Structure formats: C-alpha cells, structure tokens
C-alpha cells in the first residue's frame, strides 16, 4: 500500500522526462534507494509492473542502487554503520549522530528509445 502512490510518482517523473526528450519508450529507470528511506524495492517492482501498463514506462527495467545507512562520529570524524540497539561509534564508543546517508530516494536517470 505504502509503495503504490510512490510508484505512481516514479512513473510520472520518468514519463515527463521521457516526453521532454521525445522518447518512444523508456527501457530503464534507475532509482537510488537508501536503506532508511522506508521503501522496499520488491514492493515498488510489483506495483511498477501493474501501473506502468500502457505508459511510456511499460516494459522498462527498474534498476535500484541501494545505499547503506551511515552514522557520523564527530569525535573520530568517521562514518559508520550502526549496530542494532546501539548508536555507538565503533572506535571511541560515544554515540554519534544520524546523517542523510541512507535516506536517499530519487530517480537517478532513465534510458529511452527515440525514433
């Protein structure tokens, strides 16, 4: 359910860009999906196959670049993947801070076919 309106939005973004470039069809859409974006790739793919019918996106390959979430330790100046139930920096043990790495969710590029 959660991914349905988001998938519609992906098709809209890709189709508008394709029309601007006089595309006959879209053959590939690349999405960048952060681990903490809250969206599940398989779910987007399922809705995409249904909603893209009769649009420029029909038959396009949906590629996903997944990005692991990272925290930042200002004391050690490092980024790290946090362990479950902990926010601690693996080097100094102090709690670091969240970053935007892993929250990405955007259409990176599309591949189109023109006449």
């Amino acid at each position: 359910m959660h991914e349905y309106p988001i998938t519609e939005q992906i098709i809209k973004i890709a189709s508008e860009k394709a029309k601007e470039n006089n595309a006959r069809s879209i053959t590939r859409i690349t999405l960048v999906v952060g681990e903490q974006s809250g969206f599940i790739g398989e779910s987007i793919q399922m809705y995409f196959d249904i909603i893209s019918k009769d649009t420029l996106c029909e038959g396009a390959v949906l590629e996903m670049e997944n990005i692991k979430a990272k925290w930042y330790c200002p004391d050690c100046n490092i980024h790290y993947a946090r362990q479950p139930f902990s926010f601690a920096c693996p080097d100094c043990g102090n709690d670091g801070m969240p970053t935007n790495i892993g929250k990405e969710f955007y259409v990176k590029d599309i591949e189109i076919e023109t006449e």
Partner: protein
Amino acid sequence: MAEKEIQVVQNIFDENDRIAFATQEKLGEMGVFVVNIMGAPGAGKTSSIINLIQQLSENKVYVIEGDIESDIDTVKLKELGIEAIQINTNGACHLDAPTIQSSLDGLSFDKPGLLFIENIGNLVCPAEFQIGEHIKMLICSAAEGSDKPYKYPLAFEKADVILLTKCDLKTYVDFNDEFFLKGVRALNKTAPVFEVNAKTGQGFEDVAEWLLQRKG
C-alpha cells in the same frame, strides 16, 4: 531508432513536499500553527490532543483526525465542542500532503489558532511524509517500552517535541529512563521531552506553554 541515457535526479517526494509547503505557508499566513501528531496505535495521541486543548482554552483549535477506518476519535472530539473532521485512509498507513490539502475545506479557519493533525497510528511512514505541518510532535507511551528510539529511529530523529505518556505505568513496565533518553539524544539533540499523564492531566501545562512559545 536510438538509445539515450537521460539524467533525472529528481526526488520522489518533491511533489508531496511542494504541496506540503503550500499548505504550511497558507495556514501560517492565516495565523494557524500546524502540529503533526505521530505515534503508535494506543500511545495516547487523541487523549494528549484533548488534554492540550483544555490547556489551550484561550486559543481556537482545529483537529484533523486521520484514521484507517472509524470516526470514534472525531465523535469524541466533537462531543467536547472541538471543531474536528475525519479522514479515513481505508488502509493507507500514513497521511500525505495532497490528502491534507484537499481536506482543509472541511474546517472553518474562522480564527487564528492551532491545527492538530492526528496521523495514522504508526511509527514508520508518518515520519517520512511532510503534510504541511510547522512541527512534528511524537507521542510515545511508557507502556511501549524504553527501546522505541532504537527500533523506530526516524520518528525520533524528525520530532520537534516528544511526549512520554502514561508515565504512571513506568514502574509496572520496567521503563528504563536512562536507556530511553540516551537513544532519544543520540537521534535528536534538541527536541524537548515532556513526561505526561493524560488521565490526570499532569505535565500538559508545560507542553501547552512550550507550544505557544514555539507558535510565536
């Protein structure tokens, strides 16, 4: 026939965020301060809204009640004389900006004041969508356990203010204050945490005072 790669780099939330910003701006100009209430089912969102409205009695308050189905909370609010409307998402797990924008006509906005939007009871997706709010208020009950920041980090990270409800239950549920606050602070350095009890009204005076200061 030729194949061509086109750079797009467009955030999928852009359209939602654009509508959210328009709502926030429109209501802000009317002197209406919008609070997005997030929290798990049963955390005490509606009870907290009612307690806050009692404390904010000199201010006009509007409520949008988001629910998957039923209008139980809206009926309760209306019985108390509160101007409230219901949105049923019929299964969707969060409110989004277009839904809120299209529901605004249901409220009078005849005076400046505050609009509380009770989001769907869920600690995951409501944190991902802007709906037109000025601030996000996270309601978290002691009964849910002190590990919530570790399990639902984004909700705590995005909150502007956190209410810990049902604080009278702390001793019965072995609530670990230190563990809870450590998690909250790792995720969010600035949001104040207010301990409240909706049954007795304890703590809501301070929250209301904070809200009015923030509203400005």
